[in-house]
């Protein structure tokens, strides 16, 4: 047994971690209570097997690539970072990238991850043509929109609970350069931020960073980052068409004491960040895709900043009609509570593709909290607001929601369960997350 946790480092639980070297060995490794784990970037307990965890990152081969169509067939353990570094310079990029590039293809499918373009281009699953799934029953099946469609739509967003994703064929986007034309808009409060996001519906990429410490008339003040792929003619003379994806060399080498992030330090940081951003607001400039899409990737092990006890990310989505009122209420409670939320991100989402996919048309808000005090009770109260508004929580980030919250948020759950049952009548594939939220007890 090994102690395992997700990116949030909460909870830390026992699971038997195996690293098979062949698909045959994967099959042999599956036993009661198994789930696959990719890069371990799910925050909570999604990537931890109830009993056994199969580490998939060793399966990192590209099987074939067709530059004419951008179609790529690969093993599920390939990381998006690898894909970007390898195929970016050849003029191809995944259609959808989440806020970190260190996720595996299998994980990106299982969480149906979304990026800054979800409002117009959908989630990762939309660009998956087919996948190879090893079901709990022991079959290896090809699933696509045409073939085994139920298994396909249950696997996209299905948190690995339909079986082990072994391979996938996905489509890549043709890019002229690896640079993004970024435009920053400063918004003095939540209304202004949402207006700005609505007004930029046509932008390929959009996301808002919210200052969660600001209160009163500053509540919800934000910087909105819009982005478009830059063409060759937009680059400065002599710039490489594709930037080098280097880490800053910065990393968090130790667990910071949990007091390092406190109201004062976060307030100071946010104030500075907002003012610097606001100064840049208005004009547009060209930035490398790496800092644009993955601002936190440049700081290694940033999850340690919240200290040894770990942190929770609360990411909800609120349907469009209720979004303004409910987000205002949540932000007000967070600001009044004064708990440091270093990162708060607001983003517009469109329709999800998988049966259990997180996105629905509306606004998603992601907040980080260190694990301490009565945070679990506080988040339960926030969950009630989310549920009452017809919203839901993102399973890839979740470590603590209740069954009631989950069931209210995902009305297609019964359909998912039926498909899962047909693929895995013995209930072999189970994670800590499924034990917490799905499985009969």
């Amino acid at each position: 047994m090994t102690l395992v946790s997700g990116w949030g480092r909460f909870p830390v639980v026992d699971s038997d971690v195996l690293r098979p070297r062949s698909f045959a060995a994967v099959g042999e490794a599956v036993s009661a209570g198994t789930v696959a784990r990719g890069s371990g970037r799910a925050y909570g307990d999604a990537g931890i097997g109830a009993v056994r965890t199969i580490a998939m990152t060793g399966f990192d081969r590209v099987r074939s690539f067709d530059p004419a169509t951008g179609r790529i067939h690969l093993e599920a353990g390939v990381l998006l970072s690898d894909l970007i570094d390898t195929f970016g310079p050849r003029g191809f990029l995944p259609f959808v990238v989440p806020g970190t590039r260190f996720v595996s293809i299998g994980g990106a499918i299982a969480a149906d991850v979304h990026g800054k373009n979800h409002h117009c281009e959908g989630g990762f699953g939309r660009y998956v043509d087919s996948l190879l799934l090893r079901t709990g029953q022991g079959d290896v099946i090809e699933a696509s929109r045409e073939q085994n469609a139920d298994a396909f739509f249950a696997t996209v967003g299905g948190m690995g609970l339909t079986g082990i994703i072994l391979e996938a064929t996905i489509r890549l986007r043709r890019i002229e350069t690896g640079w993004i034309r970024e435009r920053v808009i400063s918004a003095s409060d939540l209304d202004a931020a949402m207006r700005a996001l609505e007004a930029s519906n046509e932008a390929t990429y959009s996301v808002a960073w919210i200052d969660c410490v600001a209160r009163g008339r500053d509540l919800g003040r934000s910087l909105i980052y819009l982005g478009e792929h830059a063409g060759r003619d937009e680059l400065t003379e002599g710039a490489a068409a594709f930037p080098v994806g280097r880490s800053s060399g910065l990393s968090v080498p130790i667990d910071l004491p949990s007091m390092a992030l406190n109201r004062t330090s976060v307030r100071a940081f946010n104030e500075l960040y907002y003012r610097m951003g606001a100064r840049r607001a208005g004009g547009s400039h060209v930035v490398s895709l790496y800092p644009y899409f993955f601002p936190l990737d440049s700081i290694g092990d940033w999850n340690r900043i919240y200290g040894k006890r770990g942190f929770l990310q609360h990411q909800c989505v609120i349907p469009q009609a209720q979004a303004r009122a409910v987000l205002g209420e949540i932000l007000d409670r967070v600001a009044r509570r004064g708990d440091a939320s270093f990162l708060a991100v607001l983003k517009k989402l469109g329709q999800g593709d998988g049966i259990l996919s997180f996105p629905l048309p509306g606004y998603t808000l992601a907040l980080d909290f260190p694990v301490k005090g009565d945070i679990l009770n506080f988040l339960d109260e926030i969950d009630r607001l989310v549920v009452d508004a017809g919203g839901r929580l993102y399973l890839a980030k979740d470590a603590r929601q209740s069954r009631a919250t989950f069931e209210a948020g995902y009305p297609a759950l019964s359909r998912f369960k039926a498909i899962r049952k047909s693929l895995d009548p013995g209930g072999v594939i189970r994670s800590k997350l499924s034990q917490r939220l799905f499985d009969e007890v």
Partner: protein
Amino acid sequence: MTSRKSVLVLGGSSDIGRAAARAFAKAGYDVGLAGRDVAALEPDAADLRARYDVEVGLHQFDVLDTAAFDGFVAGLPALPDVVISIVGLLGLQQNAESDLVHATAIMRSNYEGPALILGLFAEKFLARGSGTLVGVSSVAGERGRASNYVYGSAKAGFSAFLSGLRARASRGGVHVVTVKPGFVRTKMTEGMKLIGPLTVEAPVVGDAILAAVENKTDVVYVSGKWRLVMLIIKALPEAVFKKLKF
């Protein structure tokens, strides 16, 4: 025939072999992968072709079958620019202490085979007047330790062979690189207790090998910390060293 440079990786299915092949293919080299089981190398060949649009050839090679070495070298479609030997066998020290067959396999896999095959390529390279040979040896070869001296002594022999070959071949336009990776997270070391700050991932070793070839480095410690660690270990008086259990 392409005009691109080419690399031959002996031990192509190992994690470091795969990483080295990727690093060289990314830099534009055509790649030959050699290993015992050619069919098992096919997915890696496909991976290199898909990623980097290079030519990849597969070759059957068994480091213990020294009688076949001449034929192996003669049978290659072209003499590569770079040959990298990553083959090796960690084995189990405890078994090797009493099982002569196992001890012999460790000695031959880490010393005899790699040295002989690189020696053969050296002759071809010297005749041509160019080429680079890379031997992946080990920090374990710098001082025999109680816990792995069978493996360590074979690596010591290999390091000495490379050192001598380098001195001789440098006059003929041929460069020899000795790589001492330290701890690497691979199939070979799975289950071993590795010391985090001294441990690297296989791709780091692959990149280091490419850099050493391009920069004509003689001896590479993949992590600079190992140079220091081994300096200390080598400096310990034997009376102290023999009391250590590691």
